[in-house]
């Protein structure tokens, strides 16, 4: 009698467990869903920051897009070439080496630029730009309230001397600052490009001189100097054609306003002033 009271529940429960187990095994065959085994593998190698820089909702969204063939293997700018190579290995395809991009701020105004009035509102560029179209006299320049700095998930952009500056080694080219800037001053440019026109003002020379000590006055000296036909003054602003530019630096030397600069020099300056 005593043994039965132990055996009975064990057998009953065991039989039920076996029965339900079999039922589930059968139904798992019937309701089997083909899930691509590459999906979890790709999600594994992604950075997992869910920054959305690739244009898909988070890393898992990007992974499923890659598996579906909608996104390229090197679509994750944050992960860089290593991640691209890993994804390519999982997908079984060759990945073409894509050069790394870096964000660049096309303004060096900051303390060189005049302010129209004292702004004491919310310390945010978008908010500041709504008050009398911004306190900066130049209607194109960096307001310097650090909206990009707050937006950057990688601590790669900082307001130094009243203007936002990117730290190239920390930048992962996710593009969040590009869309955060209300003045559209930030662009993603190939890492190899070194020479930049750090001004975005289309104001004519005399107006610009009033507003800023450093902006482009459209003197066309750079255009005349360039041997590679890579820099042109369009609408009172010098613009570099990055496909033609060879970073020779002749325009840097000739610019009377010193606004054509090497990005490498800005970054080292930034470090010094930050330290």
């Amino acid at each position, binding site marked *: 009698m005593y043994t039965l009271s132990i055996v*009975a*529940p064990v057998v*009953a*429960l065991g039989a*039920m467990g076996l029965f*339900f187990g079999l039922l*589930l095994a059968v139904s*798992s065959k019937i*309701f089997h*869903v083909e899930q691509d085994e590459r999906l979890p593998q790709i999600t594994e190698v992604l950075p997992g920051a869910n920054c959305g820089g690739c244009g898909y909702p988070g890393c898992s969204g990007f992974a499923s897009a890659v598996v579906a063939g909608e996104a390229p293997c090197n679509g994750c700018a944050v992960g860089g070439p290593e991640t691209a190579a890993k994804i390519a290995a999982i997908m079984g395809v060759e990945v073409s080496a894509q050069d790394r991009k870096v964000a660049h701020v096309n303004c060096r105004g900051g303390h060189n630029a005049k302010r129209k009035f004292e702004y004491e509102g919310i310390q945010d560029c978008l908010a500041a730009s709504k008050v009398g179209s911004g306190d900066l006299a130049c209607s194109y320049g960096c307001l310097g309230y650090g909206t990009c700095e707050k937006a950057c998930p990688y601590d790669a952009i900082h307001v130094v001397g009243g203007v936002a500056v990117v730290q190239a080694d920390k930048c992962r080219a996710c593009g969040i600052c590009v869309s955060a800037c209300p003045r559209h001053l930030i662009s993603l440019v190939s890492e190899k490009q070194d020479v930049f026109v750090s001004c975005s003002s289309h104001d004519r020379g005399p107006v610009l001189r009033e507003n800023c000590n450093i902006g482009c006055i459209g003197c066309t000296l750079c255009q005349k100097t360039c041997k590679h036909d890579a820099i042109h003054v369009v609408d009172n602003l010098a613009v570099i054609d990055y496909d033609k530019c060879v970073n020779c630096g002749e325009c840097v030397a000739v610019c009377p306003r010193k606004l054509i600069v090497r990005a490498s020099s800005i970054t080292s300056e930034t470090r010094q002033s930050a330290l």
Partner: protein
Amino acid sequence: MSFTELFSLALGAILLENFVLVKFLGCCPFLGVSKKTETALGMGLAVMFVMTVASAVTYLVNKYILLTFDLGYMQTVAFILIIASLVQFVEMFLMKSMPSLYQALGIYLPLITTNCAVLGVALLNVQNNLNFIGSVVYGFSAAAGFTLAIVLFASVRERLEFSECPPSFEGFPIALVSASLLAMAFMGFQGLKIF
């Protein structure tokens, strides 16, 4: 059981003794999956299916296996086993036929396993000595009550998103306050009586 008895049993389970708002069973999904009416309804339907089938199966198992072998004390373990298997089955079924609902329910779908409302209905069926039809009707209407509560609460929360409330109350705190108000509103049904 006569039709009147079944009707009063069902009405009691839906309104008078609403599982969530009066008995306070199944509060986890009630608060967790009530951000959008659509997902709340999906969750409600999943719970409805699980609870109805669980009531039927647990009744049969209890009567023909547990009571026959005098194993009434094993109810809790056996019921959990049944519910867990059922939830697994529902999960597989949803993944195959309704992937979008499967994704929307997320973690809360496997959590039906540990939803005390499901175990509660199985144990209450035994406690109240309900017969097979009675158990199924009670299980179904209790789940209907759960669905009613969660859908009502989800629509309240959808409106809360756009309402102005003190910053310290934003999000979860105000949801808890409105849940308590909803529970108080359901206390109004207490006077309802069926001859």
